[in-house]
């Protein structure tokens, strides 16, 4: 490759994009199932062992955070997009009302920031709360 595409467009064209969506009851007991999906996808995308474990723990943390604020009887939606050497995770739950929020000034949020390459909180007018994070196979420079 002679030129480096600043937005990774060339890679993106070649890379296989695959989407896996998992929907469970918003229950802590089902999180191991979701994190198993996360680590399996990362291993198949040939992430290194640190990155596989990081993504697995990040998904664990994100889902646990969301399940805590989910409306009773609601579902946890988790969508994984594998794009070449990058995995994006979007997790969201319906919340009972505007009072249920996820704080980002917590140890849990620091865990997410450390484990993922980027993480953001997505709130939707007191109806849903979501966490979007992504992780790349290439270890981020430290």
């Amino acid at each position, binding site marked *: 490759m002679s030129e480096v595409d600043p937005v990774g467009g060339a890679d993106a064209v070649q890379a296989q994009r695959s989407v896996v969506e998992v929907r469970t009851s918003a229950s802590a007991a089902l999180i191991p199932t979701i994190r198993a999906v996360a680590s399996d996808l990362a*291993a198949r995308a040939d992430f290194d*062992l640190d990155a596989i474990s*990081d993504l697995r*723990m990040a998904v664990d943390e994100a889902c646990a*955070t969301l399940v805590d604020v989910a409306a009773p009887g609601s579902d946890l939606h988790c969508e994984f997009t594998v794009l070449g050497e990058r995995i994006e995770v979007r997790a969201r739950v319906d919340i009972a009302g505007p009072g249920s929020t996820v*704080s980002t000034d*917590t140890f849990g949020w620091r865990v997410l920031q*450390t484990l993922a390459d980027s993480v953001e909180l997505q709130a939707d007018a007191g109806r849903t709360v979501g966490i979007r994070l992504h992780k790349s196979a290439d270890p981020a420079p430290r």
Partner: protein
Amino acid sequence: MSAADSEYGHLTPLLVEYSGLARDDPRRERLRDELVTGYLPIAQHIARRFAHRGEPLDDLVQVATVGLINAVDRYSPEKGADFFSFAVPTISGEVRRHFRDQGWSMRVPRRLKDMHVSINAVVSELSQRLGRAPKPTEIAERLGVPVSEVLEGLEASEAYRSSSLDEMLSSEQGSATVGELVGEADAELDRVDYRQALRPVLAELADRERTIVMLRFFGNMTQTQIAEQVGISQMHVSRLLTQTLGRLRSRLDPDTRTG
């Protein structure tokens, strides 16, 4: 092995005789008893080497004796090797397998357990060479197996409990710089607003778990770097972190996490 020769020399002709007998020969059982009894001190010696690792010595002697019986049955003198160089790894292998089986939280096929052990064995070597944790393709290449088998082995690793053999074989003491690194991480922890909620919960953790959490989340170190500093495997760091985060989560609820 001259000392062993003199102690066990009288058994050698019996071994030769035993290995030459047909499967259904009526003399086999008596000969086998004699051989197993004669070589029993070897099995006991190997079992003692694995003592103090959480399994009762009696069980270990029993498992080692099974290994000895296998060794007696499978040894063939015409292949040239002396009995000791054949029996010692066979017996140790049986004891190791026992620890390995004790370490699994659910039923996992032997093939996958062996793959887990193989993977674990090459991960630190590859990490040193690459300067980072290896990828499944790199592990597969090093082991000379298909990537699909490595993926299965990694999946099986999640069913693994920590207090088992390969963890215990890892070195007990961390490097001298660990204290220094934790000190730096601690200064970083002082800068966060939730430190007052977190500190007492961290204080409840065992030293090693606390160290690992501090280095990962406040010391900016990867699992592989922590593994090297603390002197345990990357997979063990991964398991300990997962467990510890779960515990912290339940202890921090709900004051710090929500609201």
